[in-house]
């Protein structure tokens, strides 16, 4: 577990600089130097008066298993939300007035967010999960399109492997 700082909450009280035994909290980027941070130390977390520092785990537990019947109904909704997103996107381009395009834009975003939420609850919540590894592996094997960013997929598999 290493420390991370939420810049939006940090009020520059600097207590983390006083207490860090390795100087990991004092950097020019505002982020904590992960290489210097002592795993699980948490002194900065407890001392920060604005609660801007938290610990991020190196490893995550396996994800909750999803029942096939739940996945089937969730999949129906992710399909329809994605479809609606695309239809709103088309309206955003073609609607005859600014207000109509703005409304279509809002609803396109809204539909995407609902699709994302349904999909993440369909076994793809955690980037480090086995499901994500399997998905990336299958895509690397099956997608023949030249434009598919293979290197990105391969790199992700390495970086996220637990």
């Amino acid at each position: 577990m290493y420390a991370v700082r939420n810049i939006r909450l940090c009020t520059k009280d600097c207590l983390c600089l006083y207490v860090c035994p390795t100087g990991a909290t004092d950097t020019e980027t505002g982020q904590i130097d992960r290489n210097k941070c002592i795993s699980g130390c948490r002194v900065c977390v407890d001392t920060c008066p604005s609660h801007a520092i938290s610990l991020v785990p190196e490893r995550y537990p396996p994800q909750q298993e999803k029942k096939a019947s739940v996945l089937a109904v969730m999949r129906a909704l992710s399909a329809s939300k994605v479809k609606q997103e695309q239809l709103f996107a088309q309206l955003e381009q073609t609607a005859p007035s600014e207000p109509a395009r703005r409304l279509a834009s809002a609803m396109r975003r809204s539909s995407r967010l609902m699709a994302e939420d349904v999909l993440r609850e369909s076994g793809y919540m955690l980037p480090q999960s086995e499901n994500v590894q399997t998905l990336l592996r299958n895509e690397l094997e099956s997608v023949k399109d030249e434009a598919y960013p293979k290197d990105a997929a391969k790199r992700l598999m390495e970086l996220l492997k637990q």
Partner: protein
Amino acid sequence: MAKYVCPICGYTYDEALGRPEDGIAPGTIWQDVPEDWVCPLCGASKSVFEGQATPEPKAVPAASTMQAQEEPLRELSVGELAALCTNLAKGCEKQYRAQEAELFSQLAAYYESRIPMSEPKDFSQLLALIEQELKSDYPAAKDTAAANQDRGSLRALTWGEKVSRILVSLLGKFEKQGDAMLDGTNVYVCDICGFVYIGNEPPEICPVCKVPSLKISMIAKEAV
């Protein structure tokens, strides 16, 4: 005197209290509340409000009676893969993994570029699609999630259903009022659940997912 509850955000209209801020005097019965009155918290139309009654406990179908879906799940479409990847990019961002977030964004951009165009639909046809979803897909999905005690899925379905209801509410209003609905006002979308709000200021917290307003974004007006 009866009470009526907004199914989206939980705001309660109490006939005894009325809503003096909106010119509705205490003691005004529900039937006399103007049809174009909207929920003061989330903007839902009057027609979606429900009378407050203790609901009959709903019989939850036992998991075993649900049809087992033995056939393999259909493959994810490119549109779904795009949404999956943007969501995983967000997940990486929350873990301060900027590199991984960027890589997922690359994958998402690829899938997005491969989404086939479909037969265009107008606002009314989209309204009908979402209404259909609210009538059949959401209730079926919520029953299945409840039967399997899958509260994570139930959470996503509950938010999605509420947001879909708001979309239906707004699309219905747009059908009647047209562009005037957005005259001199703003459109906001909650970055977390997708709740859409029309008004001058975003609500302090999202009425659906309760996130604070710093996570609620305004849709920019087109530059003239």
